């Protein structure tokens, strides 16, 4: 007991003397995880080459539960569209988002050969003029930020059409949102 007390006194002295403390508050830029939709596209019917798919991501899934303190800020830094599976045609579509109490809002449009989208096509690259395959809707990201800031479940939708039918069943369009939440532990 005396030994522990002496150590505590020493440590207290060192810390007090050094002026060392923890910032209060401090916020960590926490990555938003899993805010994405993976849509299985059925191209088996030549007369129906359109798709309209939605995925709702719960706030409890995309917000890291280890940072349950106040949310100071939300930022979105990229949206990508990617295809998965072997297909020789092209794809044209739109990305929409919605959350409770807010209207369905267009986020971006995309078009190009299916194979081109096997490498994720980035909104950031589009802004730099390096990617003609995806066109962001300016200001639409503010809509997503509002939903995340309010910790709402977010529905990501993708609608569009493909150029030709395919018997393959493992064809997917994947939309992913990348962002951060400034939050306290």
């Amino acid at each position, binding site marked *: 007991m005396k*030994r*522990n007390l*002496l*150590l*505590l006194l*020493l*440590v207290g*002295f*060192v*810390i007090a*003397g*050094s*002026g*060392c*403390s*923890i*910032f*209060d*508050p*401090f*916020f*960590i*830029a*926490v*990555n938003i*995880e899993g805010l994405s939709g993976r849509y299985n596209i059925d191209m088996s019917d030549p007369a129906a080459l359109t798709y309209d798919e939605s995925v709702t991501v719960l706030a409890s899934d995309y917000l*890291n539960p*280890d*940072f349950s*303190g106040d949310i100071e*800020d939300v*930022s*979105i*830094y*990229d949206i990508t569209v990617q295809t998965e599976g072997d297909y020789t045609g092209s794809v044209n579509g739109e990305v929409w988002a919605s959350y409770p109490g807010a209207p369905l809002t267009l986020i971006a449009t995309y078009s190009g050969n299916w194979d081109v989208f096997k490498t994720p096509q*980035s*909104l*950031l*690259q589009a*802004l*730099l003029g*390096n990617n003609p395959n995806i066109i*962001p809707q*300016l*200001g639409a*990201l*503010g809509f997503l*930020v509002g939903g995340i800031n309010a910790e709402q479940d977010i529905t990501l939708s993708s609608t569009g059409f493909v150029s030709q039918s395919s018997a393959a069943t493992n064809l997917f369009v994947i939309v*992913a949102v*990348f962002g*951060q939440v*400034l939050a*306290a*532990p």
Partner: protein
Amino acid sequence: MRTKLAFRFVLAVVLGMTVLLSSTPARSQSDLENALEQFDIGSVTGYIQPMADLFGANMNAGFYHSAAIPTAGLTLSIELIGMGSLVSDDDKTYTANAPAGFSPATFQTATIFGENGTTISHDLDPTIQFSGSDGIIDASLFPLAVPQLRVGSIYGTEFTVRLIGTPSFDDDAFPSTTLFGIGARHSVSQYIPAAPLDIAVGLFYSSFTVGEIIDFKGLSIGAQASKSFSVLDLYGGLAWEQSTMDLVYTSTVPGVGKVDIELDGDNSFRFTVGAGLSLAVFHIFADANFGSITNFSGGIGLGF
């Protein structure tokens, strides 16, 4: 709120490398680990490098306060050593990389010793933003405190041991820590009867682990000299040293995965000057250490 306060208290305590003498393995993720997992390899390097520099300099401090080592007979000293490294303005910011395709590509933001993190907006669409994290530790002097045991003497050789552990706190809000150090010093002046000073050489190894993700190691090799004037000892030394900080975790940044990096501490050489008072079995001492990192150490001892 209770967890938050406990985390802050415990982090403050552990930054002093503290207290209780038992250690419990961390079973789950701590707040510190959760914070580090938000970084990719490039960002975490800049964010936490100052801690590697300053903690490394602390680990290699306070090993001696005299070069006088008897050639034979039992000597024993139990000591409490406090040390601190100066936190400079350069330790508070670093150049972080923005995501690929972002403009600007880099930006200045806070390290773990900085204040508020920076949020940048894309040059072509200000609604696209990216943020750096805030700093966590507010300090002008980054501290460490350890107990130390020195035992001698065998043919003018003295051995030093440091050992301290902290258990995980508050349901593992902060992980367990263990600091271990061991070293030996040998009297050189015993071979030089006419030497006006006591002279010794020494080697010290230290390690410090935080949970399962941070592992510090330090090594110091040096020579010391001292001169006694009644109860006053003046001492100094030169040392080469090395410290590394291993960091292993799984990043939550998309596409990054496991991060396993080794950061070298900045300090590789130090010049020490210090003074101590010996009053019967009590000793008090303090020194300043100059190198890439400026460091101070001092303490009290009980021994003979």
